[in-house]
Each structure stands twice: as C-alpha cells, then as structure tokens.
C-alpha cells in the first residue's frame, strides 16, 4: 500500500469498504450521504456532487453512464496522476458507487493520452476487482447491480477535459464543447444521462460512504468540506502532491513546500489567477481561491509577464477554435502581452486588452475561453512593477488593424 498520509483522500481505508456499505444502505441513502457531505467537484468548477448525481437520478432514460474525468490537462496539475498510480482501486470503487447511486451500469475512465503507460496497470486492477466481485455482474453479491468500467484514452487535446467535449470525444468526434444546458446529467454520452466527475471527487466517495458525511465535514471550512490535493511546482524545495484541509493559506503552503523567496503564486493553473505577495494570506477554498489543484510558485527573479505569455501560448495551441471570442481573442491577448513585454504597450491599448478580456470571459462558449484571460488580467493588475507602459501614442493599435 502507498505510504502517503493525509486527512481524507490519503487516510486509511479498507478496500471495498465503501462499496459494501453503499449496497447495504441502498442507492437513495448513498445519494443523501453524498449530498449531506457537501462534497464539491474537485476538477475545478466545484459543483456539488450530490446535486449533480440527483439530476442524473431523476432524468428518465433507459441507460445511464458514469464518467471519471482523468484528462488532467491543466498546467501544473498532477494530483490525479498520483491517484491513478497509487490508488486506482479507490477511484474505480468511487465510480462503482456513483454508478450504484445514479443507476448506471457502465462507466468510462477517460484517461489523458499522456498517461497511457499506466493502462496495463489500470487494466490489471480492473480485472482484479472483477474477480473480487467489486465490478461486473451482481457486485458484492447484490442482485440487480451490474457495473463495469472501460478505459478510454484521450489523444492530446486539453479541451477534452471539459465535460461536454469529453463526451464528444467518447462518441468519436472532435472534442468540441457543446452548449450547456442541456447538461451531461440530462443529455450526455450518446444522449443518455451521464455523471462526469473528476478523479479526486471519485476517490473521496468511498471514504465518505465508509466513514460518514459527518466525519468528512470535520475537515475544511464551512463552504468547502473535506480536503484538497494540491500539485505544487515551480520555485520551491519540495514540489509534489500534498493533501491539505480546505482553508489553508497560500503562506502556509509556501512554508510547507520550502518556498521562502516566493513573490507570486499562480493558483488554478493557466486558467487560474496569480496571487501577489501581499495577498498570501488568502485561503484555498471555493469561497476564496478556488483551484483544481495547481499551485505554481514563482521566485524573486521571475517576471510574471513571462508566465502570462506562456499560459496564453498554451491556450492559443489548445483553443478548439469553435467560437469567435476565444479563437480570435486569445491570439490578440498573446500579441498584447508580447507588446507589453517589449514596452510598446500604451495605456489605451492596455485598456482595450482588458475590455477584450472581459468580453471573452462572458462571451466564450466554454470554460477555456472564459478563463483564458484570467492570468493575464490578474498579472496586469497585481504586478504593475513587471511592465512599463509606452508613453508614445500609437496611431494604429493591433486591435483595430
């Protein structure tokens, strides 16, 4: 067994303790417990898991599906990788419990292509669980509960982590996000109700069922129950995955990871925002600094515009190009940050960039375009010392030409 330690996800649990108890309790009680635990999605958006499942339960359909989102593409995130490598049984058990609660007989693990070397190990775990009666027909001897899991690989598209794009991809299409609503819980895989949850969310489920929602709620803050896995990278002595209770401050994270000299922390990956030193008292939680887990630390000598440029280059590469604000906006922001770096950006141009950012945040079709400007905007506002505006009034601005 892995040697990691932590309050919830890395706490001890007997294999199959969750699924056994779930079947004893019945699906209605499982749903109530997950709702009561106040578990919120760990993939970034933070939607209450119990509520999501209850939508799938009430949707009328011949079949329902469960999907575990293991596309983990947000730059700076590798906590799902650790779970997949070290706790695959717990993830699959969480998926089976989800299947039991919503009435699905089939689950997909959508694994990013970059992690494909794990497939043989994961397949082995699946067959072990089939033999152990935790997957397949009549799970744990329960009449009428069949559930199995198929692993599907991504093929190197970040946007496929977005749940509707993921479903498109599962259906064999280009991974272009759909309009929401309808949400996947109503119209998901092949049009059937589909509950999509992040790896870490799935992993929390067996713990909650086995140990109770009351126990789960003893960790974290009022609005953010439980714990969060953080993937810490960048300028620190001890990068890696940490399980922390919600409510931990940025300062505490820096201390824990040996990053005394940090001047900035990018929370939430390329789609997140950049926290300057004077705000290091802020807390990781859904109420304050929300994150799928990515924490990138920047030391004294870093210029944050380099980070903004890197993130925008990433979005430029990964935008699916389906909607105009994102497809056209990201390259303009990228050119904008380069102009800013060269010291050629005027006040007027900067204002235009910020207003474009705002349009993208409200008018883009999916979360990629909506959050692509976040890092740049927070860096423009929080790190004014990292750039100089040009005094020259330029006639033609990149924007209008």
């Amino acid at each position: 067994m892995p040697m990691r330690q932590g309050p919830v996800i890395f706490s001890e649990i007997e294999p199959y303790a969750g699924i056994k108890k779930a079947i004893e309790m019945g699906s209605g009680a499982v749903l109530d417990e997950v709702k009561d635990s106040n578990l919120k999605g760990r993939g970034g958006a933070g939607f209450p898991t119990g509520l999501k499942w209850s939508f799938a339960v009430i949707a009328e359909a011949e079949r329902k599906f469960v999907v575990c989102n293991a596309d983990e593409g947000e730059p700076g995130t590798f906590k799902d990788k650790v779970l997949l490598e070290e706790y695959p049984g717990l993830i699959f058990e969480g998926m089976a419990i989800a299947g039991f609660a919503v009435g699905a007989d089939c689950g997909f693990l959508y694994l990013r292509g970059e992690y494909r070397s794990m497939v043989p190990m994961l397949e082995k775990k699946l067959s072990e669980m089939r033999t152990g009666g935790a997957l397949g027909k009549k799970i744990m001897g329960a009449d009428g509960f069949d559930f199995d899991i198929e692993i599907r690989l991504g093929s190197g598209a970040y946007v496929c982590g977005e749940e509707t794009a993921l479903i498109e991809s599962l259906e064999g299409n280009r991974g272009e996000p759909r309009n929401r609503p309808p949400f996947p819980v109503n119209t998901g895989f092949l049009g059937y109700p589909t509950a999509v949850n992040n790896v870490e969310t799935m992993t929390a489920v067996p713990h909650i069922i086995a140990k109770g929602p009351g126990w789960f709620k003893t960790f974290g803050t009022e609005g953010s129950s439980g714990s969060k896995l953080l993937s810490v990278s960048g300028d620190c002595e001890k990068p890696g995955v940490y399980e922390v209770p919600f409510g931990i401050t940025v300062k505490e994270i820096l201390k824990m990871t040996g990053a005394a000299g940090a001047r900035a922390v990018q929370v939430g990956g390329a789609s997140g925002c950049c926290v300057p030193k004077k705000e290091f008292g802020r807390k990781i939680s859904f109420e304050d600094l929300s994150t799928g887990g990515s924490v990138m630390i920047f030391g004294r000598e870093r210029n944050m515009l380099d980070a903004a440029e890197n993130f925008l280059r990433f979005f430029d590469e990964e935008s699916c190009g389906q909607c105009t604000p994102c497809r056209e906006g990201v390259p303009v922001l990228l050119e904008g940050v380069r102009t800013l770096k060269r010291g050629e950006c005027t006040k007027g141009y900067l204002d235009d960039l910020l207003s474009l950012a705002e349009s993208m945040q409200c008018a883009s079709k999916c979360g990629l375009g909506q959050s692509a400007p976040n890092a740049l905007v927070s860096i423009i506002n929080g790190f004014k010392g990292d750039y100089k505006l040009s005094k020259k009034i330029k006639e033609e601005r990149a924007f209008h030409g």
Partner: protein
Amino acid sequence: MKPECAVEKIIEEGGKKIVVCDTTRARLLPVLQDVQDRKGYISDKDMQQIADMLGIHPVEVYSVVTFYSFLTAEKKGKHLIRVSNCMPNVMKGSEKVIKAFEKALKIKVGQTTEDGQFTLEETGCIGMCDRAPAIMVDNELVGNVKPGAVKKLIDGLSKAKKKKAKK
C-alpha cells in the same frame, strides 16, 4: 485472400479490449489510436477503410484525425520525443533540453530525422510538473532531464531498436 486492411486487423487485435458500442461511431477514437500506435500515422487509405467500416464519410474521419495532436496524417519518426514547454518546465530549463535534442538529432522542433528514427516536438503540461524539465519519449514520461544526458538517451533508443531487430 483479402487485401491487407488495417481495419480488419484492428477488429481482431483490439476487439477484446472494447466492451461498449462496438461497431458504432463511438469506436472511432480507439480505432484511430490503434492505427496510430502500430503505424505511426494514419494514411488516407486507412481513413477511407475506417470510414467504410463505421459507415461515415472519410472527411469526418479526417476531421477527427486533424483535431487531436496525438493523431497524425503524416508519417512521423519511429520514436517521438515531446518536450514539455509549460511554465514550470521553462523555469527549470526546458529550453536547454530542447536545444540539446536539436543538436543531438540535427533537426529543429517539429521535424523528423532523415533516417525516420526520431521526431522532436514540443507539448504542454504532461503532469510531470514536479520533476521538470520533463519529456515524453514514445509512451513513457521521463522527469528531471539533464541536457547533458540527452545524447545518451537517444543512443539508448537507437540501440534498443537494433537489438530488437536482431532477435
């Protein structure tokens, strides 16, 4: 005897793995991934055959192939080296790693060596952010890559191939 057909092979080889939605459109991605794996690219003929098998237009297959960066319509090198250019990697010197590969392979990023052995690419985050600079060599993730170790890594890959060929 039927002509050599990528699609039928896939059904034999991959048939076992695939549980759900066997002959529907939803199988397209696993089918394409399988061809990509075995041949290193997906040819026009493959696309045509796959389209016939699934009862869709070849252009639809083409549009899917071009969407995903791990699927390609052009032949790539036997070994694919992808260097992550995400921020944590850049902070830890991924640019030097790229230069080292370019020098050792005598190609630029995005190119394939003349002997068809290696393709060098850049990619985003590969989940090795705590072990930067990191690269993906074929299906494996490798962390803490030192520019000085690049030559040896390439030699190792070339040798492994020769050994296999001898067997």
